[in-house]
């Protein structure tokens, strides 16, 4: 049985297409790399100046001089490149990243995102997140549907924003929303989850897509 986080990471990986330049946020989004479908080659970018990251290093393969933007040791695949931070954000802000997958504290039905600060409680800083969500061609929020039972998908974000109207898709363990100019559209539910379950866990308004699909977590089939 997959955990909620694994369900999310595996489903998010299905959004990756061959040749995509992909930036994965710290935490859950990093797990997406473990579920990239067979036959799909993507180029994993890291803010600190890497394109072409490979899997985590095996024993003896670790190089402390090669870490990702989360500070974890990584490897690179043949054809990788290293560059400075100005070039890294040329790639990010300049529209050269096809998709970024990142977590959120809150996301709302207008596509607003809050994921960098809880005033006077947690002030880690925005790092590269503000640039990533402004620059990437597609922004996917991959997160657990609720936090301590409270909805994270809101009518309107309450925390300071990371950016305005940037989120394209929200993937949780319960289902998948697309953000349209008319609001949220529920495209998929996870098998075993009812629409009422989602309503109860979601503050935002949403409409249900005509061709609503069901996502089977083990097989990865969406029908």
């Amino acid at each position, binding site marked *: 049985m997959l955990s909620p986080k694994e369900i999310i990471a595996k489903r998010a990986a299905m959004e990756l297409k061959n040749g995509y330049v992909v930036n994965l946020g710290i935490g859950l989004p990093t797990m997406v790399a473990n579920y990239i479908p067979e036959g799909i080659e993507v180029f994993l970018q890291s803010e600190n100046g890497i394109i072409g990251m490979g899997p985590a290093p095996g024993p003896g393969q670790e190089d402390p001089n090669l*870490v990702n933007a989360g500070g974890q040791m990584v490897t690179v695949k043949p054809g990788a490149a*290293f560059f*400075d931070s100005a070039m*890294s954000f040329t790639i990010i*802000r300049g529209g050269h990243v096809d998709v970024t997958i990142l977590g959120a504290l809150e996301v709302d039905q207008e596509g607003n995102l809050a994921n960098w600060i809880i005033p006077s409680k947690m*002030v880690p800083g*925005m790092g590269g997140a503000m*640039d990533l969500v402004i620059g990437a061609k597609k922004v996917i929020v991959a997160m657990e549907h609720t936090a301590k039972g409270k909805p994270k998908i809101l009518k309107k974000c309450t925390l300071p924003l990371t*950016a305005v109207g940037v989120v394209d898709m929200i993937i949780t363990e319960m289902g998948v929303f697309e953000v349209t100019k008319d609001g949220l559209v529920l495209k998929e539910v996870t098998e075993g989850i009812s629409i009422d379950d989602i309503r109860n866990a979601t503050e935002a308004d949403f409409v249900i897509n005509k061709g609503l699909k069901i996502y089977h977590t083990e097989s990865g089939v969406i029908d």
Partner: protein
Amino acid sequence: MDKVISLEKALSLIKDGMTLMIGGFLANGSPDMLIDGILDTEVKDLIVIANDTGFPDKGIGKLIVNHRVKKVIASHIGTNPETGRQMNEGEIEVELIPQGTLIERIRAKGAGLGGFLTPTGVGTIVEDEKEMFEVNGRTYLLEKPLGADMALVRGYKVDRMGNTTYYKSMRNFNPIIATAADMVIVEADEIVEVGEIDPDHVVTPGIFVNYVVGRGQ
């Protein structure tokens, strides 16, 4: 034109109250010998410009923990709880800047630009007190250049004239801060003779570098 100096000499150039740019990203590619060296001096009240404040026991974080820093300008402080604690207690001032904006502001200083327009931060608290512009229907913030008195750079193979290469992900902020400070000191993994680095492989030309110190001192 031999720019190699001792660690002791390098440290003597760092003074109370200076604004220092320091390379590294979560302590990867930071000039650790110089940072440790500062801890052996009495230098204090530094203003540090860097991507992040590392970890309490690694990289720039050590300067924070040891109360040598009065202000930090960074994109992220989350990996060093001590920075947050000092900020909450009013012991240190913290200015947070989006990473792409931070590095571009440093580059703008090095490149003699008066600023640039970025879409990053529009509609967030980052835009407070900044001028906004419409270009081709998109909204941008005007961001200004950011310089420093000194840059502490971590290089890999560095020749005696200061021509600098970098190793893997240790490059990060280092080549950019080398263009934007009045004085630039490179901490080199290895000092090589002039001519040993292929001119096509030099990342930071030696003309940006004032001094080179070798690691392992």
